[in-house]
Structure formats: structure tokens, C-alpha cells
């Protein structure tokens, strides 16, 4: 489903260049729950950006559902994201001027889908926020905001969902609940979930861990957690 091949990302630095990612290659099948871990500066977020098509590699390729992302223009990548990708951010990144319901509707509205409000309501109820639909982000707690973000991420029935430190701004109890929610949605929807985290406990709950250090993949193993469910469409 997602194939990274010899990914390299460099940035200009002083007189030369700084390689943040060095020849990273792996394949992530549909329906997996994968954690990418590593210390600060290991290249996790850079890798996430490349896999999601938010950035282009200096060399190498990323293929999402058979489509090579670096061959697409920025707008084509944006459309692809709207069709197939969901996002969850460490800082939630809800649009502050929209209500919870309106935030969840955004990906559907950008695609021009009919029925956006109805689907958004269903998703918010599914994440337990049916009674907070008309609240603005500033009126929600951190955990509630992240649940809205999760509902938004699943609104376009993504093939793949990227979560960047989804529990980074939450306390332990809330964070655990968020992870449970992600797991259940992963199982029920069959979406591939890629989580970037430095939390090893969270990482162990994923079916596979890819560890980065200094831009290299130093470990790529499955875990003792429940194996990923093959792709299905139960929660679309």
C-alpha cells in the first residue's frame, strides 16, 4: 500500500548539506498499524512528511496505492491527500474558527461531497462527542480536541492515516484512551495507521515498529501486539 524506496532528504547547512534521512526503504501493507520511533532529530517527522506527500524527497520515491508521489504536483498531492489520507497532529490542529462538527466536515467539503454534515455527526458520535458538536476548539479539553481530530481524520474514509505524536500533548490517561480509539478504528475501518512517536509504550501497541536513528532505519520488527487486521470496509 505504501512503499518507500531509497528515500533521502537533505537540507542545505552552512557550506554543505545535512542529510536528515539516508536511503530509507520499507513497505507498509494495507491495514497495518505501524509505529515509527526514534529520539529527537532522528528524522521521524521528516519521514512522516515524505510518506504523507507533504514534502518531496531529495532522492528516492514514495508510492501510495501505486501512485508515485514525487511525480505529482503539489495540488495533485493535495487532492490525493483529500481522497486517501487522514492526519492527526500532536497539537490537534483544529481550525479555531470552526465548530467541532464543521472541523470534521472540512475534508469532505474540500472534495465537494454531499452529505458532509451527516457523516460528520456520525463520526463525532462514534468518538463520543455527539453532545459537543457545536463547541469551538477553545471550549474543548485536549483529549476532546484530539478526538475531534480523529473524527476528522476518518471523515474521508482514508486508506492511510498518519498520526504525529498523537498523545504528545495529553496526560497519560487521556493519551491511553486516544490510542484505544485509534486501535479500534484501525481494526474496524481497515485503514493503515502510521504513528510517529517517541513513546515506546505506545509503540509496542502497534503491530510493527520502525526505529530511526540519525536518519537511518536501525530496526524494523513486528511486535507482540495483535497482528493487524487485513483491509476491510466495516467503518466507512
Amino acid at each position: 500500500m505504501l512503499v518507500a524506496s531509497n528515500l533521502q532528504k537533505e537540507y542545505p547547512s552552512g557550506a554543505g548539506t545535512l542529510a536528515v534521512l539516508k536511503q530509507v526503504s520499507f513497505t507498509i501493507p494495507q491495514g497495518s498499524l505501524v509505529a515509527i520511533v526514534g529520539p529527537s532529530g532522528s528524522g521521524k517527522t521528516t519521514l512522516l512528511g515524505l510518506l504523507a506527500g507533504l514534502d518531496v524527497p531529495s532522492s528516492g520515491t514514495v508510492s501510495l496505492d501505486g501512485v508515485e508521489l514525487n511525480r505529482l504536483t503539489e495540488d495533485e498531492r493535495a487532492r490525493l491527500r483529500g481522497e486517501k489520507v487522514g492526519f492527526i497532529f500532536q497539537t490537534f490542529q483544529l481550525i479555531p474558527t470552526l465548530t467541532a462538527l464543521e472541523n470534521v466536515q472540512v475534508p469532505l467539503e474540500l472534495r465537494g461531497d454531499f452529505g458532509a454534515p451527516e457523516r460528520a455527526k456520525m463520526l463525532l458520535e462514534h468518538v463520543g462527542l455527539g453532545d459537543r458538536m457545536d463547541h469551538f476548539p477553545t471550549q474543548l479539553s485536549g483529549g476532546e480536541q484530539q478526538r475531534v481530530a480523529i473524527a476528522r481524520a476518518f471523515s474521508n474514509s482514508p486508506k492511510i492515516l498518519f498520526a504525529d505524536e498523537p498523545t504528545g500533548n495529553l496526560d497519560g490517561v487521556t493519551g491511553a484512551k486516544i490510542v484505544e480509539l485509534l486501535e479500534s478504528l484501525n481494526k474496524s475501518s481497515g485503514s493503515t495507521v502510521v504513528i510517529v512517536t517517541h513513546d515506546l509504550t505506545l509503540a509496542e501497541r502497534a503491530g510493527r515498529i520502525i526505529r530511526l536513528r540519525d536518519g537511518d532505519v536501525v530496526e524494523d520488527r513486528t511486535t507482540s501486539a495483535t497482528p493487524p487486521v487485513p483491509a476491510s470496509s466495516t467503518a466507512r
Partner: protein
Amino acid sequence: MTGRWRWIPSLAWRESRTARRRLLLYMSSISLGVGALVAIDSIADNVSAAVRLQSRSVMGGDVSFTSDTRYPDSLKAVLDSLARTGPTMATVVTFTSMAYAPRTQITRLAQVRAVGPTYPPYGAVTSEPANLWGELQKRPTALVSPSTLISLDANVGDTLSIGFSQFIIIGTTNSVPGDPGLASAIGPRVFIAEQYVASTQLLGFGSRASFETLVRLPDGVQSPQWVEPIRARFRAANIRVRTVVQQEENMTEAIGRLADFLGIVGMIALLLGGIGVASGVNAFMNRKIDTVAVLRCLGATGSQVLAIYVTQAALMGLAGAAIGAAIGVAIQFALPVALEGTLPLDVTVQIVPKAIGVGLAIGVWVALVFSLRPLLALRRVSPLQALRRDAEALEHQRRRDIPSHLVNIALVASVVVLAISRTDNWRRGILVALGIGVSLLLLWGSAALLSHLARRLVAQRLPYLLRQGVANLYRPANQTRSVILALGFGAFLVSTLYLVQANLLRQFEVSAQAARGNLVFFDVQDDQRVAIDSIVQATGEQAVSATPLVTMKLKSINGQTLDVWGAAHALPRRNWAFNREYRSTYRDTVVVTEQITAGKWFGGSGTDTLSEMSLEQGLATDLAVSLGDTLTWDVQGVPVAARLTSLREVNWGRFEPNFFAVFQSKALSTAPKMFVLVAAISTDTVIARIQRNVVLRFPNASSVDLSLLRATVLEIIGRITLAVRFLALFSLAMAVPVLFSAVAATRRDRLREGVLLKTLGATRAQIGRILLAEYALLGMLGAFTGMLLSFAGAWALVTFVFDGQFAPALLPAFLIAGVMMTLAVAIGMATGREVFRETPMAALRDN
């Protein structure tokens, strides 16, 4: 609407929830500019409509025949025979005379209008008490303007002496067709019946009067067609012929010119507002980068993002323009009240939908096109910004970014098209647009220079607070350019208005104050001069000068008739210089109001038989004559030839007698003449006494108290000054939202920096001093650059448009610059107040 765009308007509206007030504040930068345009266009439309409806009343007829002398019998017969075919003819004789009120013993120069029985052919005269106009024809009575009663301190029922005749004042006039209210403020009016003019004995040798016949044509008869067969005959007799169509065209053209001039001011105000919009939207855009990054992650294309925020800008631009249109309509309704009595028309104030529509459309367009420049950058917001704050927020702009180039072209084209539409002339429009462009470039350049100098000159030895303030001028994403542009352009506009006004009015003030005497007698006959001189000396005062006046007409040049001379020099036969009656003088010295610009003053360079003469240089050009030419004049039937030996530049603005043609004494000393006497009198009481004694003995001699005239001129100057000050204040008011928008652009950076400084130990006072240093420097450079530009702009206007001499009025210019600088500091400190409120925790949380 296709799928991907279906939800964009609704998303745009919802997403704007917390930003609407701020966006509206930025868009209010254009409100005053739109208001000015709507007001100007609406008022011009209302006045033009009034002209179309009332031009007959304003002129008094469909056709007007006017002459400085009585009509020849042959032409009188023509008019009499035409009157028998249907048109109504009405006559009026107008002349100036001293009006004397025996009860109060006050005398004033007045304009006497002696009307025939059918005057006015259009409209009606309203009087107080009512219905008195017809009484004038029945007995020697007079209706006067209210200002006449006041100036004579007279009452209805008093006797009024005009020349050798006496009239009873039976009432005052409220409105008279063809006689604007403002005119009576300058020259008091007296209306009598034409049949009593002879009894005044004032229209004798050398007196000046205007003989007018007004014609009312039957319905369906068009004035141009009616007058065409006879126009040439009347023109040949130096009788001016005017039709109501010409009158309407002249008035409409005059209104159009004034509207164009004010429209340029409004347009510049609107463009200044556009600069404010651009700055404000830039600030708005900086706040939206995070949201846009998220939208990009969620699948929004660059076009969708742009459409969302352009929709917001357009809606708020429409709101700002609508506010402006409302302001414009309010001004439209208020202005006629302020101008009451000064216009010769009754103007009905009506909403002009076209003016409002055009104002709205221009306002929205300006708001959009100025918003697009900063908004286009939103297409380049990287979705990575949602993941990493330290990522480049904006992707690198491609050189061939066609939409950006198109927007730049649209901006420039908008300025040019607006300028051409407001000036109604493409050349002038392009010049105005060029002037604006050059001013903006110079301001931009001075901002760049300031940043450069600030970086070079700030030295470690300067106190930290000053250094920090100066450093803010050149740090990345500084606001130096936008603030200096907004401030400098505002200062330029206000200062130019003031300088032009000061220069134009200076000429009048200098003229009014420089006259050596303060009491002038004119129409003084030769045999009355000594006696009037004695009356003056009897009060212990002195006559300053006695200037002879000889009336004449030009007959030939270098032996050639005027027709031949005109044809040889490609001059039109209707050349004013050929046909006018000249009042010339003779003397052997140059006077203080003249300067010799070519040749030599009289000094024996003429031959024994030929005298010398001097011409005003403009007249010499219009006659196509040069030094050494011989001009022959008809002096009441006697030919007098003189050789042109010098040219003069004359200060016509001075109150002393000035002349186109001055002759050597020997040329005209024996010619029939009248005199202008000027006396310097010490007190108003003595002036009044002298005037009374002269008018009692010599009613034909008119006199003017120059101090009164000066006061009237200064009163008119005061009204003009008030209008200009209103325009200047209007421009200043507009600068406020523009400056707010310009300063808002870096609000976030300022806030972050301020709370960080507080975290590091800075007190509120120290942060205040940093802000003060920055804004004082910005204010100073912006205001003074604008001031310097205004000297150039005012010089160009005064020199090329008003044909005047420019002198920089330094004190008002510096005062305006000071006010603008203070405004910049005040707005800067006001927008920085958040820094004082926020706690250091805010900075840490934000990062």
C-alpha cells in the same frame, strides 16, 4: 457549482468568524475614499440636473445679447421686429454707482440693475415683503439685496440716492433669476426701473455699463437655430450673443472640472486606502498560515485556499465600500446645507444610484486587487507547517509565477484606468498615475534607505533600548516599508492640499495688504479732480495718486488694418485683444506694480512726432507685436500712433490701478480723460465722511473702501480655507485606519518579542521606550519624506495648473509632518498595548 467549489463560499464565511471585525477594520481604509467618490459624483449629478432644469432661470432667458455700449439703432430695430414675431424681450442695464442713504449718511459702492417691465423673462423674483417686483415700474422705488441694507445700515422705507436721483427702498430681494446669492456678498445689489436711469445722470461720457437684452423664445423654438441668422451682425457690433445651450454647456463643463479635481483627491484617498488594505490583509494572512497549512494537509489545493480567503476579502471589501457609500450619501445631503446661498441654482438632493453603484464597484475592486497581492502567497503555504513550526512557512516562489504578475499588472492598470476616468482625459490621467507611481517609488526607496542606514549606523555604544528600537527597522519581516508608505503618502496628500491653498491665497493676501492707499475714487471727471482732492485734504489727509484714464480702441498695427495684421500673423479676427475697449493711462515713470521685461522705458528713443508706449507682455503676445512696432489707436475718434518701446510684467493682483497699455505723457495729455484717485486715510470714520461728502457733490464719482473690500476678499478666502481644511482633515482621518493596518502586519512578532523581553527581565517602561524609538523614527522619516514630496507636488500644481509663483509654506508643512509623526507614534503604542497586557507565560506556551 462544480463539486470541489461547492462548499467554498460557506467554508469561507464560517472560517472568517473571529476575523470579520479585524478584516472590516482593514477594509475601512477604503471607506472614506469610496465616500468621497460617491459624494462627489452624486453632488455633481444633482447640480448638473439642476443646471439642465434651471439654466434658463440662471441665465434669465433663452438668448442673451450683451454690450458695453447702447445698441446701434439698426440692431435695436432688428430686435424690435423679432419681438413682434413671438419672443418676449426683456432689457436690463447694469452699472456700478455709489448708493447713499441720507438718513444714515453712509455710502457704499453698489451694482445697480435697471430692469425693463418684462424682466425677468424666466423665473420670478421673490421679495420681502412679497410681490413687490411690479412696484418698481410704477414709481421711483428700489428693491435691494439684504446685504445692501446692512452695509448702508438702512431700513425699508428709507430714501436711497443713486446719482442725482432718489428712490424709496420698498423691500429686499430673496432670489433673482440670473443673480447668484454669493455675488451680492461681493457687490451689494440695487434694483430700479430702467425708465429712471436717465434721471440718475450717471450714464454719461466714460461711464461703464452693461446693456443686456434677454429673450424668451416660444415653446419649441431652439435657441441655437433662432439666433444663428443674426449672430454675425450682432458680433460685428461687438455685442456678445449667448444661448442657454452654451450656458448649460459652460456650467456643466465647470461643474465637471471641479468634480474631476475633487475626484482625483478622492481617487488618491482610495488608493491610500488600498495600501492600508494590502498591509492589513498581509497581517491577516500571517495569522492564517497555520490554518492554511492544515487545510493543505486535509486536501485543499492552492486554488481552493485562495478562493476561501479571496471570498472573505471580497465580502469585507463590499462591507467597507458599503460603509463608504453611506458616508458619501451623508456628505451629499449635508453639503448643500453648508453651501446654501453660494450656488446660483436650487439643487434638489437626490440619491444617485449610478454614483453609489460605481463607488461600490470601484471600492470592492480596489479592496480585491490590493488584497490579492498578499493573498496570493497563501497558495505557497507548505503543509509541512502543520507538522513543524520551524519549517519554511512559504514555499519558494517561482520566478514565473504568472498569477502574481497578472495581479501586479491589474494593480498598475487599475491606477491608470481610475486616473483616466477621474480626469476625463487620458494624457492627464496617465500623468496623475505616473505622479502617484513616482511618489510611491520614492517612499519605497526612502524606506529601503532607512532600513539600510539603520543597519549600518546603529552602534554598540548606543543605549540598548534605542538600539533595539532601531534594529526593529531592519529585522526580517519588518514593517518599515508599509508604515512609511502609508504615512508618507498620507502626509504627501494633506501637505500638498495645504501648500496649494496657501500659495493660491497668498497672492490675494499680498495683493490686499500691499496697496499704498485704502480709498479709491474712480469715474472722476477731469474737472472734478481738484475738488475731490480738496475734500480729501480738508480732513487733513492726502491723496496718494491721481491716475488718468483714457478710453480707446486699437485701430491698426504698422499701418495695417487689424484684419490684415491678424491674417498675416494667424490671429483669429475674434481675438479679444483686437476688439476690446482699452482704458489706458499716460505717465513718465514705472510704478511699483510693474517690471520692465523687454526694451527700455520712455526716454527719448521715439522720434519727434511719434510718442512711445509700453504694453503688458501677455497682450503683446496676443497682438503678435514686438518692440519697434507702431500701434495706432482710436481715441474717441482721434487717431493716436505710438511706437512700442518696452514690455511690462504687471502684478494684476495688486489693488492699485494697472494697465495693459501705458503711453508717454505727450501722447495723451490732451485727450478726454477720467481719473482714478487713491488716498491713504487714517481712520474708518474719516473714510466714511470723505465718501459721503464726495457722493453728495459728485454722484457720478464712485469710491471703494479698500479695507472693506479686503475684508470681503478675506472672508471668501476664509470659506475656501475652510473647504480645504475639511479635505485635509478628511485625508488625515483616512490615514488612521491605513496606519493601523500597516502596523498590524507585525503584531504577532511584536507580541512574541515583547513577552520574551519581559521574560528576560524588561519592564513595561523599557518595552515602551523600545516601541517609542521605533515608531518615532518611522514617523519622522515617513512624515518628512511625504512633506518633501508635497513640495514637489504643490510646485507642479501651482506652476503648471494655476500659473502661479510657488513659495514653500514651511510652517504649515512642518506642522502637518509633526501631526503625522505623532499619529504614527500614537498608533504604534496603541497597537503595542497587548504587549503590556500579555504575561511571559504566553510566550512559552506559544512555543
